C-alpha cells in the first residue's frame, strides 16, 4: 500500500510532505521531552528494520497478494518514535525496492504514520486495563485506517478523464483483499505483546 510517483497531482505530494514533516516535528518534540530520549533509540532502530523488511513479505490472499504493513505494531511498541521510524523505513523501501515513490514519500508517511500514532494513543488509553483488546484493536484498526486514508487519497487525486467507476471498483477489490490482513495484524500485535509480557516484561511499552 505505497503510492508510486506520477499518479497524484504535484500539489497533493507537496501537501503530503508538509503534513508528514509536521508529524515528524511533533514526534521529535515529544521525544525530546522524554526523561531519557536516547533510551528508545535501540528499539526504534530494530523496529525500523522489521518494518522495512515486512513489506517484502507477500501474503497470498487469492486472487491477489498483500504485504504486511505493521503500522499498528510500530505505534504500540514505539510510541512517538513510530513516525520518524516509519519515514526512514519508507525512504529505504522507495530507494532500494521502488516500493512507493520519492515524490509521494510524505503521503505514504501519512498513510502509515497517522494510523501508527492513533494505535499508540489507543494503547496509551486502554493498554493497562484491557491489554489484549487494546492490542487487537490497535493492530486491526491501524490497517483499516491506512486503507481508508489510501483510498481517500487515490480518489481525491484522480485526474480528469480517468474512469472513476472502474477505479472505485478496483479500489474495492483492493480493500476487500486486505481484510484478512486486518485480522492478521491485530493477531500479530496481540501475539508480540503476550510474548513480551511472558518473556521480558521490562520490554513492554509503558501504557
Amino acid at each position, binding site marked *: 500500500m505505497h503510492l508510486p510517483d*506520477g499518479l497524484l497531482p504535484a500539489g497533493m505530494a507537496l501537501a503530503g510532505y508538509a503534513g508528514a514533516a509536521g508529524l515528524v516535528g511533533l514526534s521529535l518534540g515529544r521525544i525530546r521531552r522524554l526523561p531519557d530520549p536516547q533510551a528508545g533509540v535501540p528499539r526504534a532502530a530494530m523496529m525500523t528494520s522489521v518494518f522495512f523488511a515486512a513489506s517484502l513479505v507477500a501474503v497470498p490472499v487469492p486472487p491477489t497478494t498483500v504485504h504486511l504493513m505493521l503500522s499498528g505494531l510500530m505505534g504500540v511498541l514505539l510510541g512517538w518514535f513510530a513516525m520518524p521510524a516509519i519515514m526512514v523505513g519508507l525512504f529505504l523501501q522507495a530507494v532500494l525496492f521502488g516500493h512507493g515513490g520519492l515524490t509521494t514519500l510524505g503521503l505514504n508517511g501519512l498513510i502509515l504514520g497517522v494510523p501508527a500514532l492513533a494505535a499508540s494513543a489507543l494503547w496509551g488509553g486502554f493498554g493497562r486495563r484491557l491489554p489484549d483488546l487494546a492490542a487487537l484493536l490497535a493492530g486491526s484498526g491501524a490497517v483499516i485506517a491506512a486503507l481508508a486514508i489510501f483510498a481517500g487519497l487515490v480518489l481525491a487525486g484522480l485526474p480528469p478523464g480517468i474512469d472513476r467507476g472502474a477505479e472505485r471498483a478496483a479500489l474495492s477489490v483492493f480493500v476487500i483483499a486486505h481484510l484478512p490482513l486486518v485480522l492478521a495484524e491485530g493477531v500479530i500485535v496481540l501475539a508480540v505483546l503476550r510474548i513480551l509480557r511472558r518473556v521480558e516484561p521490562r520490554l513492554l511499552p509503558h501504557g
Partner: protein
Amino acid sequence: MSARARVAALFFCALVPQMAAAHAALVTAEPVEALRITARYDTGEPMAGAQVTIYAPDDPATAWARGETDAGGRFDLVLPTEPEGAWAVQVRQAGHGAMIHVARGSAEGEAALVVTAGTAVPHLLQRAVMVALVLWGALGTALFFRRGRASGFSGAGPDASA
C-alpha cells in the same frame, strides 16, 4: 469524330461519375509495428483491467489516448510517426501504477521503437543483500545507543560512546 475518339469519350464518361461522387470505398491493409505493453504487480500477477493513458511527446499533460488492459495485463498500441520524441504510457489501477517511455528511432536502420525507460524488479540476491545491509545498519544503531547507556553516559548527547 473517329471511332477511336468515340470509344475514348465513352470510356471517359464512364469514369466521371466515380470521380465526382466518390461512391466507392477503398479499404487497404498493411502491417505496422505495434507496441505490446504488459503490466504486472511486482508479485507477478497481471494488472487486469487497468487503465492505460498515452501522452504524446509534444503535450505530456493531456491524454492523447486511453484504453484498458486485458485479463493478462496486456495492451497493444500503434504509435503514429508524428510528432517525434518520447511517448509516455501510464498504467494505473487502485492507486498502483507506473509509467514507461517509448521513442521512435529516427536514424535509418535503428529499431523502429525504442523503450527508453521501463520498470524492473531487482534480482532476488540483490534484494537479499539490500535487506541484510539495512538489518546490519539497524543492529549497529541499536548497539551504538545501548553501549552509550551501558557505560553510564546516557543522556550526555549522541557522541557519548564515541
